[in-house]
């Protein structure tokens, strides 16, 4: 239990408004940097986690780390279709999608040199397997035509619009539809007809991946084991969420850099808090002496000053949370080292991210406050009273 009332600390903080505000602002900026990075990573994770249906299995060439560097032949696809455990639709067709994935360069005002975008060739079944993806404008591409459907992030970030003709491969492709991928990575992709795209890219026989839906949740692992143990197929299989989870590594450099910057800033902020608290201890030396004369122990003094430093940092922490709130939902993109294309997603400030910021501020407050608080507690009564 704290013997010295908390109002003593709170009023001391408000009594020196400017110092408190400046120190809290320093902490707030540090927290804001950390939270921005966390919100970015969280947004990416949310986007990638939402991209996977746990009932679905993605099949890549053995050793293939991404669809982009995977090759699946049509023959292998036919063999895969013959496997038990694959779900069938109401018409009795296997719920499987052979797909080809490549990268195109999309120019924009922001990036005149262009940005890599995932271009996916698929059949209507492939579209159907993506439950969250909905056509929101225009129409679906027609088989055998150079037509594409663009994710909504490409509209908002790069100005892609219906009727626009994009030049890649062997000719121009018309944007006939805009799709909303919900929170999935489909928002930053372009979909085209499988056969048209494969022909255009000279990949009629060597495609990229197969997406399968298992009959049941229990059957997912069996299906994966069945595919992976067949040496003729020579494939790796994994659940769709597991595949996308691997791709969060795209955010690792940003996360590492952001965390590094936030850590460096936190050292500065801790020193600022320490400086503020040392000044408070020096200014209130007589009060410390008085409290000791009244019977408060060294421990009470230590806790009081530590609490004050913590309160100061918490103010900074909450302020930092407020500073980053406007970022919530803001759309951005990162280049993926796995797919070599841009993945767009939104900053996602969750309660967990906010809690991280507040805890980070708390750590800064404790680190910055422990030495001044200890020095306050160490003071001899008479020297504390005399240094007033």
């Amino acid at each position, binding site marked *: 239990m704290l013997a010295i009332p908390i109002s*003593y600390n709170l009023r*001391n903080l408000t009594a020196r408004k400017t110092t408190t505000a400046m120190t809290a602002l320093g902490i707030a900026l540090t927290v804001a940097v950390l939270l921005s990075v966390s919100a970015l990573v969280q947004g990416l994770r949310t986007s990638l986690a939402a991209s996977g249906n746990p009932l679905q299995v993605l099949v890549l060439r053995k050793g293939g780390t991404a669809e982009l560097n995977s090759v699946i032949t049509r023959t292998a696809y036919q063999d895969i279709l013959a496997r038990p455990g694959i779900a069938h639709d109401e018409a009795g067709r296997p719920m499987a999608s052979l797909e080809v994935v490549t990268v195109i360069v999309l120019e924009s005002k922001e990036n005149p040199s262009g940005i890599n975008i995932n271009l996916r060739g698929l059949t209507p079944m492939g579209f159907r397997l993506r439950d969250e993806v909905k056509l929101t404008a225009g129409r679906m591409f027609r088989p055998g035509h150079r037509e594409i459907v663009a994710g909504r992030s490409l509209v908002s970030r790069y100005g892609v619009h219906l009727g626009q003709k994009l030049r890649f491969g062997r000719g121009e492709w018309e944007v006939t539809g805009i799709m909303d991928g919900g929170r999935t990575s489909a928002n930053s992709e372009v979909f085209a007809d499988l056969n048209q795209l494969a022909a255009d890219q000279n990949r009629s026989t060597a495609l990229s991946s197969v997406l399968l839906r298992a009959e049941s949740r229990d059957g997912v692992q069996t299906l994966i084991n069945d595919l992976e143990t067949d040496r003729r197929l020579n494939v790796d299989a994994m659940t769709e969420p597991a595949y996308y989870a691997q791709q969060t590594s795209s955010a690792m450099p940003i996360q590492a850099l952001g965390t590094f910057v936030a850590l460096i800033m936190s050292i500065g902020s801790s020193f600022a808090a320490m400086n503020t608290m040392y000044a408070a201890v020096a200014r209130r030396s007589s*009060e410390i*002496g*008085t409290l*000791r004369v009244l*019977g408060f122990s060294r421990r009470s003094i230590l806790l009081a000053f530590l609490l004050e430093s913590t309160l100061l940092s918490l103010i900074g922490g909450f302020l930092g949370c407020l500073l980053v709130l406007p970022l919530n939902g803001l759309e951005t993109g990162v280049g993926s080292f796995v797919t070599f294309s841009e993945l767009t997603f939104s900053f996602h400030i969750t309660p967990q991210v906010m809690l991280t910021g507040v805890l980070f501020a708390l750590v800064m407050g404790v680190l910055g406050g422990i030495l001044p608080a200890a020095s306050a507690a160490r003071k001899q009564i*008479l020297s504390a009273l005399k240094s*007033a």
Partner: protein
Amino acid sequence: MSAATPQAVITTRALTKEYRRQEYHVYALRDASIDINAGEFVALMGPSGSGKSTLLHLIAAMDRPTGGEILVLGHDLRAMSESEVARWRNAHIGFIFQSFNLIPVLTALENVELPLKLTRLSRRERLDHARRALELVGLGDRLGHTPRQMSGGQEQRVAIARALVTDPDLILADEPTGNLDANSAKDVLSLLTRLNEEFGKTVVMVTHDPHAARTASHVRYLEKGRLLPNGEVPEDWAPIHA
């Protein structure tokens, strides 16, 4: 027939406080022996540096002696740990400072309540005690005022209320009128006298002021770190007849 022996609340024998600075030895207090009985009002007088405040600080256990013995309210202060001393001081000692030493961010009521935070009293009881202490010193209408909103005399009265709120056995005052005008000083001295006479508190007061010393029942002088024998005064000082 013998009268009941007065109970000594403070007993010191050859009490010494020595400071060592390299090869120099400075005695702030040397071989001070004194007995102060319950219910006495003792003034300690002497020129600056005579050791009177040092003696008061040793009695309050705010400092440790380097020699001699000290027994206060039956406790050998040298044998107590720092935390024991802190609890003992809270329970038995009320200390009044020359500069009032109120906490500037707290109101009069909160300042007076502060020592009670270390007791087992409920918040309601604490506030009730603090309110009554402030009423006793005539500041019942200044409960919500902060030190900055009060005069020096009022601040010192709050400090007195804070010193007596725990109902201590011993009130120690270090130059309580040193920073006050004549009228405020008079009020403070009247309060100390009242605490001594009406409430039976033992009061030990350090003062430079002969007028203040006259309110005490006994006056003892110190000079150059030595407590002068009862009745002796420093050279060039006129004796005070309490």
